[in-house]
């Protein structure tokens, strides 16, 4: 009998429908897998009973001959940025310690409505601010991958969706939700040899998702392959009147229209993404990706995105500015932590609560955001960054005149060791150099595994698409996936 935890979303869905195994067997197998992987620290809360209840409902519906729901029998992991009714939600921050939402986020509700069950809430960088999962208030997530150098140094699973990436890579769940503000789905997917897609801004409702930078935040799926991402994204996306920026569009049938035949498609290679100091292995993989897409029938064209180098500094003005505003709500009054020093007044209570509750990186970003929005600096920093953002979006619009999708590396390196970059904020920020531009332009983008580096660690390739063209992105991803034949997986050392 196959180990059910080796199966992906499509295989579980199809197997439950065919009666090859029951949904309860699947949920039980994954619950055990989660319970046995505490060393990885991927889960903040385990919810085996939620997974079992959804499974029992799937088995009951099947026995009753009801039409199967899209994700019936599929248990998933939920990033702890999504509010879940009755289940503690902290965004991995002390300031939300003890917070139990009395409501459900739209994205998670959509998944439950589609029949999915929840294995637990996944660890992450605090308030989704980080690229290594080291800013969580509840400890680092440890990547299931190890370098093949015998050293066994604990590696970063990427961030901010590091619990999600580690859990999917370690086969603790067949799929997980992620959120992406500047690369938080794609970079961890690349670090752990899995797939993940950030859809066009507005596809997934932000309602009930703890806000970081509202003009950038988008939810998306992280799973083992492109098909699984398409299935899960169909369930997550959709118009929601409760989010003013939700797009009032039908959800396309991405899975049914998957095709790796790229005849007639043009793939752009942005020359500005050849950054100084890029490891040769990443350069080689990128060229390999070009060859794969050409083999799939695509025409390759070189394009220019001249403002690429300004994307990161613009992002590190815009995202902290929005964060400083969004995180003003954590004041110790309505929910979460309250620190009321003896004899303190209201203002002192705010300041003490926020000093205690926020981690160092969150405070750093709130302060940068406060500074760039403060009187006298607003135009020089914030308005200028928003203008540069217009130029970055324009670069992409001009590229779309010459190509249908763009191919780039996902990250400038393979996974680094925990602690290796945490002393230098800017070195950490540079991890998002390839993912931030498409975030600033609101474009759909995905990472798919391409191969391994010399140390045996996964490397990802990124595909960026036109607004609303998730299909084009998924199809190019599928073409790479079929040719890369990526089958490596971490050894179960934990």
């Amino acid at each position, binding site marked *: 009998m196959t180990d059910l935890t080796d199966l992906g979303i499509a295989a579980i869905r199809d197997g439950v429908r065919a009666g090859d195994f029951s949904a309860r067997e699947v949920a039980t197998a994954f619950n055990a897998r989660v319970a046995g992987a505490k060393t990885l620290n991927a889960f903040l809360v385990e919810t085996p009973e939620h997974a079992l209840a959804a499974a029992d409902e799937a088995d009951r519906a099947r026995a009753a001959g009801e039409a199967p729901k899209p994700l019936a029998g599929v248990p998933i992991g939920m990033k702890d940025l999504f509010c879940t009714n009755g289940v503690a939600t902290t965004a991995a921050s002390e300031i939300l310690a*003890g*917070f*139990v939402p*009395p*409501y459900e986020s739209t994205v998670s509700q959509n998944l439950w409505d589609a029949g999915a069950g929840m294995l637990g809430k996944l660890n992450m960088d605090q308030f989704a601010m980080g690229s290594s999962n080291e800013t969580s208030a509840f400890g680092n997530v440890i990547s299931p991958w190890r370098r093949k150098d015998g050293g066994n140094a604990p590696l970063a699973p990427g961030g901010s969706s590091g619990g999600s990436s580690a859990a999917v890579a370690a086969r603790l769940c067949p799929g997980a939700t992620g959120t992406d503000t500047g690369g938080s789905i794609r970079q961890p997917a690349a670090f752990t040899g899995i797939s993940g897609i950030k859809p*066009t*801004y507005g596809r997934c409702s932000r309602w009930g998702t703890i806000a970081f930078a509202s*003009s950038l935040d988008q939810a998306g799926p992280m799973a083992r392959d492109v098909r699984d991402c398409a299935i899960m994204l169909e369930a997550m996306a959709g118009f929601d*009147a*409760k989010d*003013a*920026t939700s*797009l*009032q569009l039908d959800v396309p049938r991405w899975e049914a229209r998957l095709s790796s035949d790229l005849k007639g498609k043009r793939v752009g290679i942005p020359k500005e993404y050849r950054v100084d100091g890029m490891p040769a292995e990443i350069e080689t993989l990128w060229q390999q990706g070009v060859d794969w897409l050409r083999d799939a029938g695509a025409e390759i064209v070189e394009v220019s995105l001249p*403002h690429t180098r*300004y994307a990161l*500094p*613009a992002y*590190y003005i815009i995202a902290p500015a929005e964060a*400083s505003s969004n995180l003003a709500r954590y*004041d110790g*009054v*309505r*929910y*979460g*932590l*309250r620190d009321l020093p003896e004899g303190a*007044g*209201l203002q*002192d*209570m705010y*300041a*003490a609560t*926020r*000093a205690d509750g*926020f981690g160092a990186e969150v*405070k*750093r970003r*709130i*302060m*940068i955001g*406060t*500074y*760039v929005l*403060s009187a006298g600096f607003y135009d*020089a920093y914030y*308005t*200028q*960054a*928003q*203008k*540069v*953002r*217009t*130029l970055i*979006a324009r670069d992409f619009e001009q590229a779309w005149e010459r190509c249908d999708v763009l191919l780039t590396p996902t990250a400038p390196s393979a996974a680094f060791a925990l602690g290796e970059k945490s002393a230098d*904020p*800017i070195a950490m920020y540079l991890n998002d150099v390839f993912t931030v531009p498409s975030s600033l*332009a*609101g474009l759909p983008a995905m990472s798919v595994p391409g191969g391994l580096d010399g140390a045996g660690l996964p490397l990802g390739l990124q595909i960026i698409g036109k607004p609303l063209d998730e299909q084009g992105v998924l199809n190019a991803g599928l073409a790479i996936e079929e040719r890369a034949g990526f089958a490596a997986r971490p050894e179960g050392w934990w």
Partner: protein
Amino acid sequence: MSVDTRTVKKIASLARIAITEEDAARLAPELGNILHWIEQLGEVDTAGVEPMTAVIPNTLRLRDDVIDADPLTGGGIRDKLMTNAPQAEHGFFTVPKVIE
């Protein structure tokens, strides 16, 4: 851009984050480095460029002008809203006295 500890303390106060002298001394070069790094944006010629306000063209919708148009975001859920309050009395959030 160099940031002094006085500026750090002012930002922290605006952000309502309590910091110590040691925090301020540590944060000053850290924030200075980040601000210096983002200042390269000044090189970009943005004359005549409109600042971006929405990444994907979208129109703001109006909801129906009725009470509780969406029950999830409507009213009448006071007790539910207060279940997470650090301190609540008689259906109110309580805070330290603000008027002497």
